[in-house]
């Protein structure tokens, strides 16, 4: 059991989290923009998440909280 929470308000849509995720659980949204206009990262495959925190480790903006 693991999950992540992405703080959309802080997200700049850089994609480094998605790039780091070994299970391809994260994708950049094609439509959801935050208040700053960024297409945010979305947790698209919650079931595959192993809570490894590699996404959060690479996130430059401290958007991701990981629970396991």
């Amino acid at each position, binding site marked *: 059991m693991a999950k992540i929470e992405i703080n959309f308000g802080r997200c*700049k849509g*850089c994609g480094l989290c998605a790039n780091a995720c070994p299970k391809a659980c994260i994708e950049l949204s094609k439509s959801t923009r935050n208040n700053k206009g960024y297409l945010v990262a979305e947790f698209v495959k919650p079931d595959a998440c192993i809570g490894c925190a590699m996404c959060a*480790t*690479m996130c*430059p903006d401290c958007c991701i909280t*990981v*629970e396991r």
Partner: protein
Amino acid sequence: MSVVFEKPHALTDAVLHYCPGCTHGIIHRLVAEVIDEMGIEGDTIGVCPVGCSVMAYDYFNCDMIEAAHGRAPAVATGVKRSLPDKFVFTYQGDGDVAAIGTAETVHAAARGENIVIVFVNNTTYGMTGGQMAPTTLPGQVTQTTPFGRDTAVNGYPIRVVEMLSTLSGTALAARVAVDTVPHVREAKKMIRKAFENQKNKAGFSVVEVLSTCPTNWGMSPVAALKRLQDEMMPYYPLGVYKDEDIHNKKEGNS
């Protein structure tokens, strides 16, 4: 389930002003995590530079000082000499450390000041729009080397930690990177070691962190990580160039 990863307390809630994918944010977080883990936020004073991280004073929850361009090691010296039992770190870029502030950097090391310099090398002046830095690679195109850095005209990049490792006052001189998860973890270990050195009054510690500048490199954040690996790492090899307890060795060996 319990939280295994969240924003460290030593980072404020402020949203970082850095461009998307800029790895400054990762390095900020690593410093903050080390401060949290050592429980020293209330005893730490950070000094920020001029450059992209000029506003880092808004991002760290410890006391912060904004220094003039290149002068952070001198400012840190003033703080540390006044408050020898507090932790003092500077957070500086390549222009700050190795161009306008070379003298301050070298002499803080030579004096064996018990401070930590977190040196962010992204081979460019980011804040001013991507001019040639002292660490810009040969051939690298920047705003002021539009045809690529020509070493016959612009000279050669400075390998900062190699240079500082030759000084007797340096306790730790290491180069790390934040391009991959294992490298980020290694970078944190090295920053922790630098702060531990300060706790042990072991001497001057500098950790150079290879970082990206997707905006001024004209690349996507992911492609920028690739450039860091393919172009920067061969010129700036990762590793520990010096690791020695300078001050206590003197006493211990006598």
